[in-house]
Every structure is written in C-alpha cells, then in structure tokens.
C-alpha cells in the first residue's frame, strides 16, 4: 500500500466513523426521558403551547424522519436550537470556542513544555533517582482529579498567597482601563498584538491556574509516554552503532533519539487532546471560564438535548480529525510506522 492509498483509506474510514457518530449522538439524545417541548417553554406551559412547540421542533414526526431532518440540517451547518438558550447550537459553540481553545492550547503547550523534557531526562537517567522522581511526579499528575486540584490551587494561590485571581477570564475592570481589541479571540494573543501590556498581564494571570489545572494530567501522560518511546529508540540498532562509535551519550539522547521519538510523541498529543477536552469541563466550571465546557455541563444538567448532541458531535468530530491529522503527519514523518 502506498502513501496515497493509505491517506485515502484513512479518510474513508474517518467518514464512515463520522456517519456512525452522528447516528449515535442522535440516538443518545432521543433517550432523554422528558418532554423537550416542555423544557423549551418552561414548566408552566399550557398544553396548547407544548403542542405548538412540539410541532415547531419537529418532534411529532417519526424517528427516522427526525434523523433525516437532523442530518439534512447538519449538512447545512445547522445543529438546531438550544432548548436552554433558544439560540442556534452552532452559534453557542462558535461564541464560546475561542475561550476554550485558548485554555486548551495553553494547557497543552504547558504539558508539552514540561512533559517532554521530563520524559527525555527520565529516559536518559533511567533507573536513577531522577527517573524515579519523574515517575512519581507524572503518576501523581495523572492521579489528581482536576476538580480537586483546581480547588486546591484556588485555596493556595488566591486565599492564602493573594497572588492569583480566583476565577474568570479577565478582571471586570479591564474593559474600562485597557479593553482588549478582539482579533483572534485568544485574549493573550490579542493583547500581545496590540501591545496592551496591562491586559496581557491580566489575561496571563487569569489563565495561569486554569492552564496548570488542565495540564497536570497531560504532563504526567506525556512524560510517561515520552520516556517509553525514548527508551525504545535508545534500543534501536543505529543508536547502538552511534554509541559504539563513541558519540557522546548526551548527544545521542537529545539529538538522535528525540528526533525519532517525535512521531510517537505526536500520537501522545492526539490522545492527550481527549483528556484535555473533557478536562476543560471541570476547569471551566471551577474557574468560571466562559467557554464550551461550562455550556456543556449546563446543557447536560438541563437536558438540553440539541446542545448535548451538537457538543458531543463537535467533540467527536474534532477528536476524529485530530487523530486523522496525527496519522497523516506520522505517515509523512515516518512511513514505516503507519503503513504497517
């Protein structure tokens, strides 16, 4: 199978999976044991109002017809109307996405920045105290519930040290002193681009605790997996050969092995994305972050099934695409691995 064939096949299976995913989210949402129309207009609704909204939402049609309508709307980029906010689900997702992405990216950035070096060092000093230390730290990272770590950090950095803000994305007063001009929707970058240092500092301080909370799990995961793939690389013949030729250990570790461990690290980042995405739900709730996570939790608790459907679908699509891209990148970097 050549590279082109592989890419086509991979794209094809992704599309099949996405169709399945759409059916599954649809079915999950239809299990919801309550009257959607009543949720839409509230508990004091008159029977005639419920009947009107049931019709308006198309809930009086048979299930396969509802699915067809849903798919048709989906292909036109319409995820339906949120029962809770009465706005299009797509609009809700779009409006909240920049905040969540900023959090997610800074968390992932932190995780890679700390996790990869930890893993490399750990592999380099395998079996030494440093390795054990990294092992403990990374396992602690994956064992700490985000919803508890967030609270601990709030207690420590806000209540005890008065160092960092308790919650929110920016200080409420910022819009009067140095308002952020939105360009990318990522406040950190927007304030940087406009050289708005006051805002930059404020955004940074607000972003810090949520990012750390989000990153903890991924740091552990990335460190462990980087270590594993590094060790595997150090076992390879050409590394042994390099060693035999007297190339210095440090050079081997950092240059040869790391370069080759890059491709498994990509896989790791793909996997970590799923954890980080669900991690944002907790982090956003705890730090009152105005993103997709809070909206998700509210929709889940409020039985807002079009929103649940939209978000689940969106999460799955994002996840499938990330994995697809990771696979394709790998095929490009290291043809041996993916063509197996």
């Amino acid at each position: 199978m050549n590279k082109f064939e592989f890419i086509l096949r991979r794209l094809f299976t992704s599309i099949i999976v996405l169709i399945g995913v759409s059916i599954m989210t649809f079915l999950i949402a239809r299990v919801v044991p309550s009257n959607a129309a009543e949720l839409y207009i509230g508990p004091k609704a008159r029977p005639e109002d419920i009947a009107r909204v049931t019709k308006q939402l198309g809930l009086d049609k048979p299930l396969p017809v509802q699915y067809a309508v849903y798919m048709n709307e989906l292909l036109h980029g319409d995820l339906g109307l949120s029962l809770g906010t009465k706005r299009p689900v797509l609009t809700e997702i779009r409006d909240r996405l920049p905040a969540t992405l900023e959090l997610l990216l800074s968390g992932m950035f932190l995780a890679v920045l700390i996790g990869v070096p930890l893993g490399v060092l750990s592999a380099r000093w395998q079996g030494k105290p440093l390795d054990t230390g990294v092992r403990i730290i990374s396992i602690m990272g994956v064992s700490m519930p985000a919803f508890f770590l967030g609270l601990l950090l709030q207690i420590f950095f806000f209540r005890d040290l008065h160092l960092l803000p308790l919650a929110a994305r920016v200080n409420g007063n910022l819009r009067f002193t140095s308002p952020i001009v939105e360009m990318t929707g990522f406040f950190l970058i927007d304030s940087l681009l406009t050289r708005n240092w006051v805002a930059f500092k404020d955004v940074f301080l607000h972003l810090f605790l949520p990012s750390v909370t989000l990153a903890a799990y991924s740091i552990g995961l990335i460190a462990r997996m980087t270590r594993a793939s590094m060790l595997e690389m150090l076992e390879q013949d050409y590394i042994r050969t390099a060693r035999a030729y007297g190339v210095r250990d440090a050079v081997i570790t950092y240059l040869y092995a790391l370069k080759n461990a890059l491709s498994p690290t990509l896989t790791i980042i793909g996997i970590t994305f799923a954890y980080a995405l669900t991690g944002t739900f907790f982090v956003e709730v705890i730090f009152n972050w105005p993103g997709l996570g809070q909206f998700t939790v509210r929709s889940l608790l409020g039985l807002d099934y079009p929103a649940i459907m939209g978000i689940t679908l969106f999460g799955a699509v994002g996840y499938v695409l990330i994995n697809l891209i990771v696979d394709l990148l790998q095929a490009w970097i290291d043809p041996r691995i993916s063509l197996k």
Partner: protein
Amino acid sequence: MNKKSIFFTLLMVAVLSLSACGPAPTATQPPATQISATQVPATAAPTVPPTATPPLVLKVASTASFETFDPIASFSVEAAYMPNLYEGLLRVNPPGSAEKYMPLLATSWETSTDSLTWTFHLREGVKFHDGEPLTAAAVKQSIEAAKDHGGAGFIWAPVDSIDAVDASTVVFHLKYATAFELIVGSTYAAWIVSPKALDAFAADATYWEKGVEAGTGPYMLESYTPDAEIVFTKNPDYWGGWTAGQYDKVVVSIVPEATTQQQMLEGGQADLVCACLPTESLPAFESNSNYTVIKDKSFFNYIAWFNTLRPPLDNVKVRQALSYAIPYQDIITIAVGGLGTQSRGPVPTGVFPWSPDVNQYTYDLVKAKVLLKEAGHDGGGFSMKLTYTASNPAEALFAPLIKDSFAQVGVDVTIEPLKLAEQLALGRRGATGEDMSLMLYWPTYADAGVDNLWSLFYYTAKPSWNLSYWNNPDYQSLIDKATTSDQATAQPLYTEALNILVDQAPGVFFYEPLSVFVIPNTVAGFQYNINYPFTYYFFYNLHSAK
C-alpha cells in the same frame, strides 16, 4: 460564506491550531470577528478625546443571562434585565408605597363598575428604540401576540378582546372580573414591543436569536457575550428624561459563583451583585459602614405536595401528623442561614392574598405521634418516596432533615433528587407517582390567588401543577369565586380557602426565604420591589453617589 463552510473552517481552525500547538493565523476568520463586532463601541472608547467626560458606568455581577431575547416568549432569568429594555403599561409598586401602581406607558386608566372593561390612556410622544412611535395598535398587537404564543401567555386568560379605540386609547374587555392591574404589570408576557420587530419575528423566526431588542425602556442593549458580559447603554430619548448621576452604561458580568461575586463586590470589580451572596458573608458586610444590607420579604415559597392518591396519605390525620413532624426552624437555619420565615400557606408574605389570619403548624413530634396513632398508624411503619429539584441547593440541604425527622415518628423516607421536568412528570403519573415532592414556587405575576392557590391545589383530573390530587369541594368553590372577583371581594374568600388548605394539609408549607441585597454607599436610589423578584435592579432608579 455560508453556515456550512463556517462550521468546517471553524473545525479546521480548531484542529490546525491544536496540532500546531500555537496561535493559528487563520483564526481571524468570520466567526471570530463576528463576535468582536458586537463589542465595537467598547473598543472604540479609547479614541474618545481625552477632554470628554468618561461615561458613568455601573458594574453589576449577576448569575442571570438571557435565555431568550424574545420579549413575548421571555419566561425566565432574562427578567433580570427586561424591565430596563421594555416597559409595560404600568408597574406594580412595592407594598406600603403611597401609590399602588406606577404609570409607565399608560398615564391613566379606569374600569367599568362591573370591572369587566378597562380603558388605558397611553403616554404621548413615546418612541421605541427602533424609532417607531408608541400607539394603541402597538399595545394591542403586543398583548395579542403574548396571549397567543407568549411564554406566560396564560396570564391573559380573562381577556376577551382588545380594542385600539384611537391612537392613544386601549380598551380591554374581560370575560370575568380579576385583579387586572396585576396582570398588566406582569414581568412576563406584558411588555409592549415595537410592531416593526413583531412583524420581523413573524416573517423570520430567528429574528430575536440575533440578540436584538425593540422596547421603549430607559436602557438599550449594546452587546451581549454569552456567559460573560451584557452591556446596556442609556436611551437618550427616554420619555422620563435624564438627570446627572444616572448611569450612562451598565456592564453586567455573568458570574455563576456566589463566592466570586462576593470577591468582586469587595474588590470593587462590581458595584452591585445579584441577591445571591453566601449567607456566611453577610455579617462582614453588615458591620462595614461602606455597605447597606437590606433584607426583605420575597416572592418565593418552599412547599411540598403529599400525593393524596397514595395511602396512607389519603388520610388527613396522617398528613397533619407529618406536617407536625417538619423541623421548620432547623430547615430555615440550615437551608438559608436563618434568613427566612415559616410560611402561612403557599402565599408569600407581601403578595396578594397573603393574610396573617392563616394558621401554621408547629414542630411537635408528640402531636405527630398521637395523630398517627389516631389514623391507625401507631408508630408509623410506612415508607415514603420524596423527590426534590436537584438544581436547588436549599432543597438538597433540607430534604435530609425531613427524612431524619420523619424517621423519629417511624416513617421511612427515600430521597430522590430529580430534574424539575422529571419531577413534574413523575408527579403527573397519579397513584403510581411519588409520595411527596418539594418545590420552590413563585407566582407568574403578583397574584398568588389566581396563581399559587389555583395552580398548586385546585383539583383537575390531569393536573399540570396540583400534584397532591387533593379534591375539596369547599376549597374548589371558594377559589372559583375568588379568582373571578376583584381584589377586595376576593381577599376574605382566599383567607378562608387558605385555612381549609392548611387544615387539610395536602401539602407542607415550609418557609419563604428573605431577599438580601448588599448595596455599597456609592450607589444611591435602590428600592427593592418584591413584585419583580428576578429584576434585582431597575437601572434607571439608580444613581452614583460618589
């Protein structure tokens, strides 16, 4: 760019920026800029010449956002802001005011002797925010739309027809007498909306989703960022005029956490917070001379229904016994830190037709045991399923207190938290439903006779809210009479009905929580109005006292 391509561009942006682990230059796509477009006025602020006086801004932190911008459909937390954007014909003043009603879009009104014809004279020269003039036709169209498909459209049930007699006179013809001013002053389904916007909505069902408004109120909507911020700006042409010290802009930060709101109030990030600070924080504010703490009656009531279709709850003595076995004071202490009073029936104090002549149960386990014995259930020996609304933190706290107290009279309680919709659905299953369900209830508008007393305990075979299935002919006929009379005639009828209700105990009447406001001395003009329980602040009434 069509919606579909936005969707996929967005996904690609998300995905690409993730895999690149850095800022995506493509993120300046329409989705992102569209959001910022709503904030242009704010970002333009720094370009104002330095000599101009900066706008006077009121900063509010609140839990409430907009669940809908449709003033006709509005039946939820957006009531916190609607009265600033929209006006009705009149507003109901808080109890004890010199005048019972404040004229808004109507300057005066009168009723016929049989109370069946109500004539309202409209204010001259009022314009909607979109430039349309206020006319009798606009009023007729707004109310008819509300009656037809309003979220709380049922409040207009007594109205037979509406006539726009001339440009500034509206006449309502009623099917039966009622406390009509209270309906007209409702915070739901009674806003007068620009006919242009109503027509636009009729033509395009997504009209309100864009986040627009078309009222006559003192403030206009400037921008809305979901889950983050709402900005209001003053309507310079407001008919009431403006005086120095009133706020030019109101910026609302949406903050779900009470603790965070407290921090914002203390740190000056917020001038006002919605009435939901942690009760533990109040003593500190009370002892601080920079704040005034106001505690007042509220529109709310915690009640429970006993399902009288399920034995032994069909026995009035069992219901009375259980009513005596409720630790009312402990419940108030734990659930709201003592900031509440025991209810007299399901009508909140300060709301029509509350009466001090209605009886209450005490916490008396001995009496409870005696009554159980008389009912043939000596030592209890039966079990009950109790449901409550899971999203309500107070109910989560006091439901276990009920369980423990009932255990002392030998009644075993299983607690089940449910979503409100599930709770109601279970209750509507009749004899196969739950035994007892807790509910926080408030009237749709300031008439707890037509609402609470009818909705909660008037028997209908297929109830929407009377989950007790209690059917008492005396109560039914008193309510029938009272709900079709004017206020003065109705009050004694309601009081009599309330005492039957308390005596027969088809439900439990726990407590009404107090409304608590912490107002810094830098903000003046605040007056609490119980009749608009979700409207914490009428921005127009406030002015800076700095």
